[in-house]
């Protein structure tokens, strides 16, 4: 017992965190990423590799089931916490760590009920108190739900037949059956094996074959990308049909129904349109930070974690009002290293081709249109150029003209936010791309779902 306790304490000193951002949770995510980095708590890509699940951002009932699945996929010992505002991130993480350091047995049933209450049915809460309740309750962690999970055999009913309805990190239960099938070719059409009423192990259903890009008849694999994939626009869900690892079809899920969005990255423009005085320097700071955030995501997806960290540090320093003199040399070094990397260029060139004419036709504005050449390297180099331009303007005090000067993702228009056009482009660009390339395409356009709608408290109320 003493040994287990000691091990538990040691393990909790560096928990791996599954950071899940809900739409509208960008500021919380930024605070959390910074906190995790300074604490040296690694960020996990999947629930299997995580000890602590941090839900960053406002509550969103539509994404509740996806969150629940992620939570159920986490192996014990595990803790789930929620931070609704950026300020509470540090304390919430600390509380989570403290819970992890307590041996299982001592946690007992008390927090089970608390957890059940906390994350089970957000709808029960009075809208006004949702925020406070969640901040409290979700620190109660373990739901009764996972106890049941352990009793489940592989034939758990919850796993069966649920193919399309998966959120999570693409490894959700129902998808697993497709996993294999996607790679099971049906080259021989002569064999008359009916797939119909066959009983599959685990109660999983068969995948169906279809023509693939190269003229083979391979099984189709239905995998949702998002809403909570690592390094993915939070809340965006793309349902892709894979054959092998090539995307054959991609469909956008409807964005969460919602009211007026309050996107973090476009906030200066939003305020300027309502007549508030905003100076150019502030907007430039926000734009540089937004592009660095996108770059960090792109570099992470491209498998260059070291430079992704550099981008995110720069971003965080910008948002903390670091002076231009401190930022400029570092930004230059980063731009040089990434922009001139031949390897990165070689790996990404020709991926996600989008000509300027096509982009304009899809009413895209912003860096995606300006990127000459229109492939992934053109877009990240455009970001880098704009970061440098913006960093040079940090001290400009002229008032911001929200029409003349673009928000990070394009000309700000509350009715038709720039990300809407970017998102619409995705299905077309993804078809025929290999999975890794598809991730690069999404990361290189980096639409901000916060601009589309957000699961906001006002919405929950209405």
């Amino acid at each position, binding site marked *: 017992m003493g040994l287990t306790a000691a091990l538990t304490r040691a393990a909790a000193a560096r928990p791996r965190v599954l950071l899940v951002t809900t739409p509208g949770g960008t500021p919380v995510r930024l605070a959390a990423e910074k906190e995790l980095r300074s604490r040296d708590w690694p960020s996990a890509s999947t629930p299997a590799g995580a000890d602590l699940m941090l839900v960053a951002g406002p509550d969103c009932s539509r994404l509740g089931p996806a969150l629940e699945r992620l939570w159920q996929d986490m192996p014990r010992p595990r803790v789930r916490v929620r931070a609704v505002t950026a300020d509470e991130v540090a304390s919430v993480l600390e509380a989570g760590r403290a819970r992890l350091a307590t041996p299982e047995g001592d946690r007992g049933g008390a927090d089970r009920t608390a957890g059940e209450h906390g994350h089970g049915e957000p709808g029960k809460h009075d809208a006004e108190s949702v925020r406070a309740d969640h901040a409290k309750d979700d620190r109660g962690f373990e739901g009764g739900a996972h106890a049941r999970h352990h009793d489940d055999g592989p034939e758990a009913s919850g796993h069966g037949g649920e193919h399309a309805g998966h959120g999570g990190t693409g490894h959700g239960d129902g998808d697993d*059956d497709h996993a*294999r*099938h996607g*790679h*099971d*070719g*049906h*080259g*021989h059409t*002569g*064999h008359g*094996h009916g797939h119909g009423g*066959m009983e*599959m*192990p685990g109660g*999983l259903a*068969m*995948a169906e074959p279809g023509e693939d*890009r*190269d*003229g083979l008849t*391979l*099984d189709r694999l239905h995998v949702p990308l998002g809403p909570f994939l690592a390094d993915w626009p939070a809340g965006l869900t793309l349902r892709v049909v894979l054959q092998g690892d090539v995307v054959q079809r991609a469909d956008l899920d409807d964005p969460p129904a919602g009211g007026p969005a309050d996107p973090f990255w476009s906030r200066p423009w939003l305020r300027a349109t309502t007549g508030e005085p905003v100076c150019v320097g502030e907007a430039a700071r926000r734009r540089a930070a937004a592009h660095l955030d996108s770059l960090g995501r792109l570099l992470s997806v491209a498998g260059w974690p070291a430079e992704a960290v550099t981008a995110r540090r720069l971003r965080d320093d910008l948002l903390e009002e670091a002076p231009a003199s401190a930022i400029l040399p570092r930004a230059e070094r980063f731009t040089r290293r990434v922009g001139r990397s031949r390897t990165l260029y*070689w790996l990404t*060139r*020709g*991926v996600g081709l989008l000509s300027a004419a096509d982009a304009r036709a899809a009413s895209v504005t912003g860096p995606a249109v300006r990127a000459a050449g229109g492939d992934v390297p053109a877009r990240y180099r455009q970001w880098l150029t704009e970061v440098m331009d913006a960093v040079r303007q940090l001290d400009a005090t002229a008032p911001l003209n929200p029409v003349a000067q673009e928000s990070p993702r394009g000309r700000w228009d509350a009715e038709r936010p720039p990300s809407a056009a970017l998102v619409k482009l995705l299905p077309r660009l993804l078809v*025929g*791309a*290999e999975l890794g*390339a598809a991730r690069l395409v999404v990361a290189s356009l980096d639409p901000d779902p916060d601009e589309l709608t957000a699961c906001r408290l006002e919405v929950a109320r209405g």
Partner: protein
Amino acid sequence: MGTTSTVLLWVLGVLALVGGVLVFTLNSMARVTFALLGSLVCVGGVVTVLRLPYLGVVIVLMMVMEMVIMAVFMIAYMMNPAGLMPMSMLHNKRGSLVISGLVFAALVVGIFLVPWPDRTGARLEDTTFQVGMSLMGDQMLTMVTLGFVLLATMVGATVLATRRGRYDRFGDDLDQRPANDSAGGGVGR
């Protein structure tokens, strides 16, 4: 041959046989492939114990690569989804039984009919050099021919299996650069 070698030889031999039986009794394509791999690794061990370490280790090396690649293809080109769906690995039972029986009988008869040579001279510690000489010395022409035949077979099979030809890639006058491919390669051709 010492006691250790004899014991090893028996153990590996039996394990190779067990692996071979499993190939026909397991009902998952992936497991069958790796049962076959296990069996072949044991054969590699047997060859090593028989003092042909080079051939033995190379058998292990090549068989791992081949079986893993084979697993990919077996699973990719099967009429029935792979390891998930239990399936029988037996086809044409009667015919294959007859063929395998005949082959087995022929091999056993061969053991007794071949005039095995007697040992002349002492046993060498390192046989790798001898293996190399006997393969690449007198039989050099055979090996070179075999090598080219194998290469030609592989290239030919790939060309026949590919639907797209150079006219699809480079246009009717073969002057279109870069090639019209669904995914770009690393050298930009």
